[in-house]
């Protein structure tokens, strides 16, 4: 594997926008950093920013480790990423609208029909349903990795209910509290307006039959969900109600919430639960968190669901390989952000190549997430690879393969001091009547040496992400 790109710089050469951080690291005594790290932990613990991990042992409410060394992007880098994100998310939305509408992408032969229509992310109930402004994925989390100064790859598109934005915002809050002098010395673009942007985005897609100011509510599965902290944080910041299924009721094809003054209408439902739990009349009849009749109200144009039902069709890893083609087809542009080179195991030629090169590839289950169900070829044993080869032959449709990338690194506090650790970036893209992106995003860092897995469920941490002018 090639040497990983160090974003701060290597061989004694510091990249200019990291110079301030570099001298801050050199000038600050270790005791001060130790103190600040304890203070940071204290801040997060006290505000209750925890992440539920279901292992059945230890503290069920853990903190996601927060690293106090920020990751810095300069204005030029960000301008490029931002343009690329905007382009990609517009194409993804156009694709979903097409899937549930005219299906021209399929008819033009750009994708085999069965890959869309037989996909578990395809929701047949959405066919022909018109959504406000044609927007399906209102909040998209696009995971990026970087391999050199110029190249960002899109690792995956999260078009359903991407989470993590609260960490992005709280990381910045904590940094500003801990190191005001650093902010005084840099021109860091602010991100605190994210929640205002989100509320505006949601209001802009009010349903056609909405009268008066649209009422927005955030639907959570409840306090035991791993992202509950984020749900309550966002509802609080936006000043909207945080509702659970039993708080909602559909009457006469309209959605209401139960309040101390009787029923009150809801126009836009920002849901943070999966499609299949939304409405027991349409999806899982055993769902206790769902709202019977919700889809009927949706169909009648009385409520907007964000992200739209069925948006998951665009974040399937097999569909991912077609995104560059979507950009060309729907926007008539060349993609700015590249996909990671990907072999589709469902195609015989690709599959044969993958089986021959398992030792250098990462193989992923197309429906997997959170870093589960994948084979990291270079780290796997011979037996594991042989076992995976059998699985590939049996159900090639389930897998894609990618080269193991040398993810870029950023300086990070570890037990032995400061060392480079691999990072990725999840910017959050808001799509309503217009597209809004706050500068930066959530940087996740793999804290174990050499590890490429940044998922918080697997020992990853987070960093504040700066875009500086």
């Amino acid at each position, binding site marked *: 594997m090639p040497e990983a790109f160090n974003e701060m710089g290597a061989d004694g050469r510091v990249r200019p926008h990291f110079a301030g951080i570099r001298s801050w690291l050199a000038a600050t005594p270790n005791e001060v950093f130790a103190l600040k790290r304890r203070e940071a932990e204290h801040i997060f613990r006290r505000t*209750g920013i925890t992440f539920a991990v279901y292992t059945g042992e230890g503290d069920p409410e853990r903190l996601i480790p927060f690293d106090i060394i920020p990751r810095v992007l300069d204005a030029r880098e960000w301008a490029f990423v931002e343009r690329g994100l905007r382009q990609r998310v517009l194409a993804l939305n156009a694709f979903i609208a097409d899937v549930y509408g005219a299906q021209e992408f399929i008819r033009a032969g750009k994708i085999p029909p069965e890959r869309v229509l037989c996909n578990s992310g395809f929701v047949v109930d959405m066919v022909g349903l018109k959504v406000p402004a044609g927007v399906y994925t209102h909040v998209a989390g696009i995971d990026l990795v970087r391999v050199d100064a110029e190249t960002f790859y899109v690792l995956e598109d999260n078009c359903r209910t991407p989470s993590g934005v609260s960490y992005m915002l709280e990381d910045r809050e904590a940094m500003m509290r801990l190191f005001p002098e650093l902010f005084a010395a840099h021109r860091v673009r602010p991100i605190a307006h994210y929640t205002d942007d989100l509320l505006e985005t949601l209001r802009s897609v009010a349903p056609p039959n909405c009268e008066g100011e649209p009422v927005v509510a955030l639907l959570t599965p409840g306090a035991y969900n791993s992202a509950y902290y984020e749900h309550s944080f966002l509802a609080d910041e936006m000043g909207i109600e*945080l509702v659970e299924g*039993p708080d909602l009721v559909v009457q006469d094809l309209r959605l209401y919430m139960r309040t101390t003054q009787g029923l009150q209408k809801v126009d836009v439902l920002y849901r943070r639960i999966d499609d299949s739990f939304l409405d027991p009349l349409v999806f899982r009849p055993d769902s206790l968190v769902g709202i019977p009749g919700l889809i009927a109200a949706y169909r009648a144009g009385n409520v907007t669901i964000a992200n739209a039902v069925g948006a998951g069709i665009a974040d399937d890893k097999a569909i991912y390989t077609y995104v560059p083609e979507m950009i060309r087809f729907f926007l008539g542009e060349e993609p700015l952000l590249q996909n990671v080179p990907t072999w589709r195991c469902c195609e015989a030629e690709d599959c044969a190549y993958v089986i021959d090169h398992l030792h250098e590839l990462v193989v992923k289950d197309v429906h997997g997430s959170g870093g589960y169900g994948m084979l990291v070829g270079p780290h796997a044993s011979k037996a594991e690879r042989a076992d995976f080869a059998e699985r590939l032959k049996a159900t090639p449709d389930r897998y894609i393969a990618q080269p193991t990338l040398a993810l870029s690194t950023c300086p990070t506090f570890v037990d032995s001091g400061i060392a480079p650790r691999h990072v990725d970036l999840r910017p959050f893209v808001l799509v309503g009547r217009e597209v809004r992106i706050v500068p930066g995003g959530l940087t996740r860092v793999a804290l174990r040496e050499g590890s490429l897995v940044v998922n918080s469920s697997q020992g990853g941490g987070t960093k504040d992400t700066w875009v500086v002018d």
Partner: protein
Amino acid sequence: MLSRTAENLYWLARYVERAENMARLLDVTIRMAGLFPHQAGSNEWHSTLIAAGCANGFYAKHEDATPAAVIHYMTRDPDNSSSILSCLETARRNSRAVRTALTADMWEAVNSTWLEARVLQEAEFATESVHRFLDWVKERSRLFDGAVVGTMLRNDACWFTRLGTFIERADSTARLIDVKYHVLLPEYESVGGAADYHQWAAILRSVSALRAYHWVYRDRIKPWLIAELLILRPETPRSLIACLGEIMLNLDLLAQNYGRRNECHRLAGQMHAKLRFERIDQIFQGGLHEFLTGFINANIELGNEISRQYLS
């Protein structure tokens, strides 16, 4: 606001208050048990269970009401939903479900209490040292109360929280006074004798009202005056009439804000009026225990009516 939010706030306040009142109840029991420690057939611990309304649950698990067993059951038995630790845990669960409706100070009061309670050692619950734990519980409850009064926006969220506190407190004061009914006097003692006197004094102390008694009556301790102080005097903060006054006030604020009055307003008004025009000698004539039982039932009914109207 969402009914579920209001409900969580209401029960959050009730459980914090209940934890405190369980502590007060145990406190009075320990005091009474200490009065005549070598008395055969002494039954303070049994009486406490009855007054707290948890005798059935206790005897399903235990033969005898020994001090250690009762203390365990009422402070930390997870099978007892009203044990102090259960109350603190439920309060914390309710808070977590409505984080956005709480002020930071309220959340911290509840959360840090729970975090500290989780790591308490066995020794803290021993019969001889449990009073320190009970003091701590009272202190944490006052911290929560202070956070509510000092930091909460005066809107319906606050009024539902306060309703929870005072419905629970009214219930608890009535039960505390009733302990005296269940505790039998030692055989050789007569009503109005030394034992009787000290038992009443223990009740006064348990509601932190001993000094208040002297301020108000400037008299030696007399049972009917104590009952009057804790039932009919509006200036005693934990008296039944004071609790009802607060309940009325918060219900009125809700009515003004929402533009309508309901059955719960009528019930509360009726209970309040009854206390206002009651005389303590009449209460004793009719039987103090009967009066208190009637009050506890009416208070439960009022709680149900509030739930029915706003919280479901």
